[in-house]
């Protein structure tokens, strides 16, 4: 590869486009999570996706550390790798928690599954926006995508609060109570990590162009 081609290719661009591999894994994990919640599927698929995400994150980290990245961007890019990888980790943790305990009250169980699916849909929507965001060529567009993800996260917060209210209002045994709180936290973590990733991504892009 000639020197001019290497310059025109740009290491930052190549690495940032590679982040979409993690987002794609996140979208697959979201589908797998949906099946886990809806049909109580096994978590093997989501576990394997979590490993794939770790591998891609490791590759990107290596590329950041050894490639032609401006030193002032290295730390922020590494933070982004960690946050995006955490999205899939949180989905895996949610799936594990879901399988750990069964709520006996069927009405309650159906209601919680519905709310978790709603939160997962929000996460899937946030990931689709992140994918567009990471391909975007305009800072204004990136700023708007960031706001969209922020509003999805706020919707997720409302659902989480609803689950907390439910847990406190029902007469539940400790395990069920703790399980609902834990599920709400894990589902919210997925959206929080999406939001944090979009914030960091915006910071990176704005520091590149300003």
């Amino acid at each position, binding site marked *: 590869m000639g*020197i001019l081609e290497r*310059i*025109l290719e*740009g*290491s*930052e*661009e190549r690495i940032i486009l590679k982040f979409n591999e993690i987002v794609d894994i996140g979208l697959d994990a979201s589908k797998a999570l949906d099946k886990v919640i809806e049909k109580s599927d096994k978590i093997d698929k989501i576990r394997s996706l979590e490993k794939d995400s770790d591998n891609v994150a490791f590759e990107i980290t290596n590329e950041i550390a050894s*490639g*032609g*990245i*401006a*030193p*002032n961007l290295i730390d922020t890019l590494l933070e982004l790798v960690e946050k995006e990888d955490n999205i899939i980790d949180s989905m895996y943790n949610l799936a594990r928690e879901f399988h750990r305990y069964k709520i006996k009250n069927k009405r309650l169980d159906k209601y919680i599954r519905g709310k978790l699916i709603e939160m997962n849909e929000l996460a899937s929507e946030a990931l689709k926006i992140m994918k567009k965001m990471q391909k*975007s*060529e*305009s*800072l*204004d567009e990136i700023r708007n995508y960031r706001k969209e993800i922020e509003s999805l996260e706020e919707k997720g917060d409302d659902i989480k609060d609803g689950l907390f209210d439910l847990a406190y209002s029902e007469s539940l045994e400790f395990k069920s109570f703790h399980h609902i709180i834990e599920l709400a936290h894990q589902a919210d973590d997925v959206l929080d990590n999406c939001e944090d990733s979009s914030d960091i991504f915006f910071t990176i*892009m704005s*520091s*590149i*162009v*300003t």
Partner: protein
Amino acid sequence: MFGGILILILSFILIALVSGNNLPVCSGSIIGSRIVSRRNGILITIIGYILGLILEGGMLRTGVNAVLPFKSEQSIIIAFTVAIFIFLIAHKMRVPQSLSVNFTSILLGISMAMHLPINWLFLSFIILFWIIAPIISIVAMRPLMHKTYSLVKKRSIWPTINLIRLLLILFSFFAAFTLGANTLGLLYATMPKGLYSILAALLGIIFGSLLLSGGELRRIGNEIISLRYINALNSQIVSVLLVELAVLLSIPLSNSQTFIASIYGSGLSYKNRILLRSPIKSIAITWIGGALASFAFAYLFATLLA
């Protein structure tokens, strides 16, 4: 004969020291931001130095003649010896030094010790330019940064960044070119004319750039230039234009001064800013200290030998 050979040796050493010491100012931003490898950055700088020296290096003779109107072998040897002494200290401290200021101070010290007729008007003009140039650099950066940002905002990010990267390489080359014309030209203009002088200068450039730039590259890269692309490009543009103007006016001007002032100016152009003043202060103090020490040593040596 012996004096001539000694001048060639001293000029080789001094040009090597200056080439290495000033290399980060030219290509520190493209090496530091990893746009090019260290090897390619140094190569671009060497080519720039050499072309600048060959094509425009002679333009500084008017400036040299204004401060040191009669050049004897003795006065040239004193000038180069004191300059090397000052630069070795700077190199040991890993501080970028302004040869333009130091060497002009040395020539002034020698002229005054030898009671030579100095062109005070031109000298005042030179000093005025030294004061004005960093101020222009700082002031010019704010509108330039805003204009560039508004232009970049409207365009697609990655093609714009790629263009900026290319322009950075181009202006790093121009920075080396103007440094070759001005700072190295100042030394060349002090040397006796001839093929051996140009050969000593070229060898000094290559040797210094390859072997004596490590410490300064680390210091500039780690402590001062944590530059974004647009800051780096604009700082380089302002610096190159001012130094080229100085070359055309036959005024010795420090690239380091204009470049670092531009970086400072780019920092001031942000709404929210945290600027580390201590490195800037220490550099400014060493510049002034270097000029005074250069004058004092040159005056002392010239007086003793005269």
